[in-house]
């Protein structure tokens, strides 16, 4: 089935079997092997990518359903692997084996965006106005990304450090 995907800004015309998941299309056809397959069942978040700016599990979506969509993988978060979040993950040791890291980074990129837009979650104290990125708020928002090495302290520190740099609150406050 002919499917057009824009991945990390580059258009691709693919001819895919209907059974190919978005994750397998990214990894096997486009050789973007950053996105990982942990469980293949939507439970670990290692395959998290952004589709039209929203995070989803690429393992639970058929690639042919994404005709015309814009997809961002970990490879597209920055040209040099040094987006503020990526740099913070290195600085705060937010990984051990690194298998979950691409998913964590895509998910965290979306979290910062969701907070900047002022979208509350069910643990937010206040449903109106800017959302404060507390530890509880972060745990809820990152709940779909499991780390088998249990690097949560480093992951949290990394995300919170970028949030505190003002990249997040600036927009929310405007």
């Amino acid at each position: 089935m002919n499917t057009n995907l824009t991945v990390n800004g580059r258009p691709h015309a693919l001819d895919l079997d209907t059974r190919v998941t978005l994750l397998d299309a990214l990894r096997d056809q486009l050789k973007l092997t950053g996105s990982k397959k942990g469980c293949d069942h939507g439970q670990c978040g290692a395959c998290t990518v952004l589709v039209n700016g929203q995070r989803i599990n690429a393992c639970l979506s058929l690639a042919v359903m994404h005709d015309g969509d814009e997809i961002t993988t970990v490879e597209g978060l920055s040209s040099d692997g040094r987006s503020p979040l990526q740099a913070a993950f290195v600085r705060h040791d937010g990984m051990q084996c690194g298998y979950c890291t691409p998913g964590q980074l895509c998910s965290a990129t979306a979290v910062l965006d969701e907070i900047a837009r002022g979208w509350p979650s069910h643990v937010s104290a206040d449903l109106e106005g800017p959302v404060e990125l507390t530890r509880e708020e972060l745990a809820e928002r990152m709940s779909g990304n499991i780390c088998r090495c249990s690097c949560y302290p480093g992951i949290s520190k990394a995300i919170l450090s970028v949030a505190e740099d003002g990249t997040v609150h600036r927009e929310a406050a405007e």
Partner: protein
Amino acid sequence: MYAFDIERPTTIADAVAALKADEAQPLSGGQTLIPTLKARLAAPSKLISLSGISDMIGLSDEGGALRIGGATKHDTVAKEAGATHPGLAGLAARIGDPAVRHRGTIGGSIANNDPAACYPSAALAHGATIVTDRRDIAADDFFTGLFDTALEDGEIVTAVRFPRPEASNYQKFEQPASRFAMVGVFVAKFADGVRVAVTGAGEDGVFRWTEAETALSSSFTPGAVEGLSVSADGLISDLHGSAAYRAHLIKVMTKRAVAAAE
């Protein structure tokens, strides 16, 4: 997965026509169906995607009731239902995790009728109406057993209509790994009485706790159910918890839901 074709209709009528093909099956968010296909537990010849049908997406007011299109995502319900249906919005906000909520839909959840799914309890507690391409079905008649509903072959849930409660709340005791309900209780108070629906616990899926409904209809306080006890008969016993434990949780979650109802 076994091989299948995909069609992407843009109207309900086209979807219903496409579903007449042998072994055709609807695909909504895929958060349940794709794992099922991977496990080769389903072998549709053709998947009919519902996600491009605009008449099935979004929330609207229908004579004071809230109509939610069958292909509306959990995330949308979480963000938009709160003003009139806070219990329902809270339920949607707690389904799985953000990535699941960005794909999964209310129609898929209701049609699948997983015994641990959240939405069936909301539909039953609100006395909601399940709207399909051919008829209206009362929630009381819709959930007919484990993964079983009143839907006929090729019939699709196009919307669910929720009357507006005076107060409502959903409390979920999560199975910590999957975040599905080990026991979930939805309480909804209406002018003519209170309805209590329990998910995650029944061997036949979601059910109403009618004794609690009677007690709460005369006094809408957590104390009103204190003297009641839930029988473990017919409740699920598995590695996550025994039937007796679930019976205990039903009362605890009901009290919490009443206390938190708004």
